[in-house]
């Protein structure tokens, strides 16, 4: 990933925030619409949660050698 890629992604994120606080400011279909940038936070938190939970399960319970069942 080059710096330019990060900048493009950053701009895209800022645009979505812009829409969220202008066009969608009055939008209220779920309780979480009141939380600013909820979906961004949700994405990041869930990503961390999935990786760490998966890692924990893998390490402690399910990971075995290739020839485990042989």
């Amino acid at each position: 990933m080059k710096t330019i890629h990060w900048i493009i992604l950053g701009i895209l994120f800022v645009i979505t925030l812009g829409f969220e606080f202008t066009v969608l400011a009055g939008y209220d279909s779920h309780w979480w619409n009141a939380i600013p940038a909820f979906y961004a936070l949700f994405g990041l938190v869930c990503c961390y949660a999935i990786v760490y939970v998966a890692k924990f399960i893998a390490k402690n319970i399910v990971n075995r050698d290739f020839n485990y069942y042989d």
Partner: protein
Amino acid sequence: MIEFLTIPGVILIAGALLLPFLPAKVRPSLFLVFPLLALIVVFTRPDGYSVTGTLLNYDLVMMEVDALSRIFGIIFSLTAFTAGIYAYHMKELGQQCNALVYAGGALGVTFAGDLLTLVIFWELMAVSSTWLIWARRTKETDGAGMRYLIYHILGGGLLFAGILWHLATTGSLAVETVAREYSVANVLMLLGVCINAAVIPLHTWLADAYPKATVTGSVFMSAFTTKSAVYVLLRMFPGWEVLAWFGAAMAIYGVIYAVICKDIREILAYHIISQVGFMVCGIGIGTEMAQNGATAHAYSHILYKALLFMSTGAVLYATGTSRMVHLGGLFKKMPYVFFLYMVGAVSISGIPLFNGFISKGMTIDAAGYAGNETAMLMLLLASVGTWLSVGLKLPYFTWFDKTDNDIEVKKLPVNMYIAMGIVAFACIFYGLFPGTLYMYLPFEVNYQPYTIYHLVEVIQISLLTFLGFWLLKKKMAPEPIIALDVDWFFRKAAPATRFVFVQKVDAFYDRVEDGILGIARWLTEKFRNPMKWLNPFTKDTNEASSYSPSMEVVMSFILFSFLVFAIVYLL
């Protein structure tokens, strides 16, 4: 009779019976004709069209068309056609015939108007698809195929038992929505169908067998078994709340395992479980929008999952391995496959402009509109996991990451690229023109996927998930491991089960056999010379033959006595 031969499922199965009599050269081309014929039939038959017949005393409806069966019929025929192109270079008759029977089975289930027809095609699918696993002919695939077959025989048996019970209690064989009550018949049928839909914890056959099937076989497998089960659930069990929770749970279960797994085709297999979870959840919610969402998602899913299995199959074909630990750095060697894979990957992740976006959003929103915000958030969490594992982890560790991978890459047949190109085009086409899919859905569609809210939601989730992946990617790096699943319980229990139910039973039969032979031996010895019994003073050395005249007299006397007794008794 002519009508019978125009049933889409029968067309494909007839094709499979015809293929062995044709020269090997024309077989792959002719393979493609049958799905096309089926597609023409599906498009030209109006709503309410039916083909009926009788078997024993039962009136069968072997084909019945409505909006729901049509949309599944279209996608099953299309997939059989594109998978046929993908497998064009493959000359193995067994795989060609079984793939056609398999696709025919799925189409047969889709158009079956009665439960007996349905279960016949259902079992045909199970048997023919097993061949596609065994066709790799390794020790590993022999075992996986057997486990797959046993699981599906169990599923088919449960479904059939449920159907018979249903017939006995209601007297009806129609494929229709059943009363929402946990009667024995309904539970048996639901369990049978849930096995094929890979609902956790009945899912292990899928993650076990699909990654081990042949390169071309897994493309067929990714489309038919689970989605025909989704169709039956939509038809018979819409609105069963238990399905909503199992669906949401399997959506998350699938993505967690996809993060754990280190084999690219196994990751995709777990993602079938996850994606079918979205559909099962939609069916469980049961509103018109949710059912539309489940149907649309099944349609989209078959397309992008076929594309994903095609492109990872291409990697396996070219490199000879699907284990991530051996892959990496393939971008320069297989750039086109990467781009085609990414079309499938962004589609499954529900990125705007691709077909996953127009169907996944509908299913998730349907959960929200139905007031089930918990299920909605669970499905959104699963979406994060999908993008993380199929959209980022898999391609990163397959095509990038390493720079010094000197793995040999075989040239791919052109037909593989053509098939992937067609399916990739379809993924983009439906993403750009959602109306072309929505018009075939069973209920009227009042859903607009391209709203600012929806776009903001998806883009924010995807961007921050990407950031998370980039920060945590080392934690997902390839390792030489396998991941155990709940099949551990019966795979580890197998030796004990074999000991109790096979070896012990065998030993028992052996003992009984020895005992019977022993008795026979004893009796033979004792009756060799009955004179010893009749005359205690007979010498042991005397043979029976020397007594024959007197024996005849004795035996004649006994017989005569019986005769006299019988006559007296009867008169």
